[in-house]
């Protein structure tokens, strides 16, 4: 998380730290056996990772403490249309991890709500992004062991598209923006999600109740001026989520 703050205990109780084949990723609790994350966290080099390779940590804001209590995965489910062999297609970047044992919820572990069908994302709507991904300490990027969060507004889809187009002028390979994605961030930069936050939550609060609007997916750099973070639009996948959980 760039430009964010450390999250106090119990303020983002749905946050999950995933360790997949040794790589750090984010996730969010959506049911007592289910974690919602990004597909690219679970799929490397075109292969879906095995459930044995997945460790889930939740309930604390410090990785050192989290390491004491990993939860094992029973199965891994990647959206069937996610196909990103070259790291340039993040469409349908959504996946689910089923835990071997159910979790009992308390003040430190609580599920995040899913959006209702047809929920609209309005430009400027503030969301809360969190994760154990890269952060900045002075000018250096470091990996933090403390859960951090930053509040970011939803960016107009056209403005986001323009920023991606602009990025493509200066870079050879930039993924495409689709309608299954939305952007969040500030044009002046300085606040963003970053590597290691992937799969983590972009939540929005309505009347004190948070719901999962997005999943940290990709972006061009982190916290740079004129770029935004790109998030998977969860409201487009509620059916798939429910269906996958019911069938498994």
């Amino acid at each position, binding site marked *: 998380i760039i430009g964010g703050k450390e999250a106090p205990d119990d303020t983002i109780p*749905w946050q999950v730290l995933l360790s997949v084949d040794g790589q750090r990723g984010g996730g969010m609790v959506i049911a007592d056996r289910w974690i919602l994350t990004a597909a690219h966290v679970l799929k490397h080099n075109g292969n879906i990772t095995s459930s044995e390779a997945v460790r889930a940590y939740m309930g604390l804001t410090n990785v050192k403490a989290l390491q004491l209590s990993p939860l094992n995965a029973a199965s891994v489910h990647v959206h069937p249309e996610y196909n990103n062999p070259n790291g340039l297609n993040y469409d349908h970047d959504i996946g689910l991890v089923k835990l071997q044992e159910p979790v009992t919820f308390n003040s430190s572990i609580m*599920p995040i709500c899913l959006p209702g069908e047809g929920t609209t994302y309005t430009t400027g709507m503030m969301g809360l992004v969190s994760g154990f991904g890269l952060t900045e300490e002075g000018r250096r990027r470091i990996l933090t062991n403390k859960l951090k969060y930053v509040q970011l507004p939803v960016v107009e889809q056209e403005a986001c598209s323009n920023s991606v187009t602009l990025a493509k002028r200066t870079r050879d390979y930039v993924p495409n923006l689709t309608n299954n994605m939305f952007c969040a961030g500030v044009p002046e930069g300085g606040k963003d999600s970053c590597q290691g936050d992937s799969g983590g939550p972009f939540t929005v609060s309505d009347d004190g109740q948070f719901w999962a609007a997005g999943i940290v997916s990709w972006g061009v750099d982190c916290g740079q001026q004129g770029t935004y973070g790109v998030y998977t639009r969860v409201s487009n996948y509620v059916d798939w989520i429910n269906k996958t959980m019911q069938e498994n």
Partner: protein
Amino acid sequence: CWHLPDSEPPMHGHIQSPQYPQPYPPNLQEQWDLSVPEGYHIRLTFTHLDIEASAGCHYDALTVLYDGKALGKFCGHENSADGNHPGNQPILSPGNTLTLLFQTDKSNPERHQNVGFSAEYQAIDIDECSAPETEDGPLCSQICLNTVGSYLCSCHHGFELRSDQRTCVLSCTGGIFEEPEGHLSSPGYPNPPPHAVTCQYIISVEFGFTLSLNFTDNFHIESLDTAEGLNCPYHWLKITIPNEKPMKLCGGKSPGLISTHSNTVTLDYHTDNDGQSSGWSLDYSTHRVKCPFPGKVAKGRVTPVLSEYLYRDHIFVRCDQGYKLMTNGKEIKSFSAVCQSSGQWHLPLPECHIIDCGKPKPLLNGGVTFLSGFQNQYLSVIQYHCNEPFYSLLGGMTAEFTCEADRNWRSNNNLVVSPTCIPVCGKPTKQISAYQR
């Protein structure tokens, strides 16, 4: 020709004069000997009779005879002024035979050609019992039973039919009465029996029934006081009921109704060679044995409610709602008992115990609290709750459940399914607060 085997005479037949319906010839002397089986009369009915009419049937005549005696001599025709026409009245023979003799003279009148007669006969049962007494006395000395074609003699209780099948001799031992009700009396009652009677009557009905003896008022057994002070020394009626002291009766006063409380009673009637007793008569009846009132069952009902419970009566016990039938510490589905012949119920009454619904199912991520009642018993009320604020009841379902009569915990909506706690999402207990603006 060959000899036909002997066979019973016919029960009916037809006879007619020679050449009938053509005029009969002169100088006839024709005889018919009719017979039917013994025990029957013969009834002879003329279908037509047309014989030359004359005073006293002097010339031509049909004579009907029984045992050589003429029952009638007939001639003429229906409308003739002379002669003796039998008309439509049948002729009944006193016995099972009848003879008809048809005689004609030399000449027949020229004006009217008489055709003779045609007749039918049939066997008619004789009521031998109503026949007048003969010199030898009555047909049966005591009871005569008419049967078709015959009769039977029978005797009153205490007498046996002699080998002559007509007269009766005193014999009154071994009479066993097994019908539920009946009548018996001393031999010859109300007339004095022959001397030195020793009769035994055993009334024995099914177990479960008790006998009542109802003596008629006309009761007379010689009663003489003896110097030794013996009671009923010479003539007596002894009533023996099992497990009770025998009762010796004599005198002129009827004992009236005696309830024996037993299904077996033996009556021994004794007279000696002296004195005279007219005897006794009684009607007996049976009553079903009584069982004690079954009593009451707490929290239950005994049905049917009767003023008395008798042998073979059934009772049923049902518990009030919320209670179960228990006997010997075990639950039973239903209960019925029958009043036995011994006057005891075949099973003791069960008890009604309050039912319980068992321990309420635990609620995952929640709990259960007893609101009222005792040990999960009928009408106990429990309340489920979820571990708030992290869980809440699914659908806001009523969390109060009552132990109902069907042994299920049921909600106010009559649901048996216990509630479910669903996680509360997106509501952290702590908020990220930032006051700086």
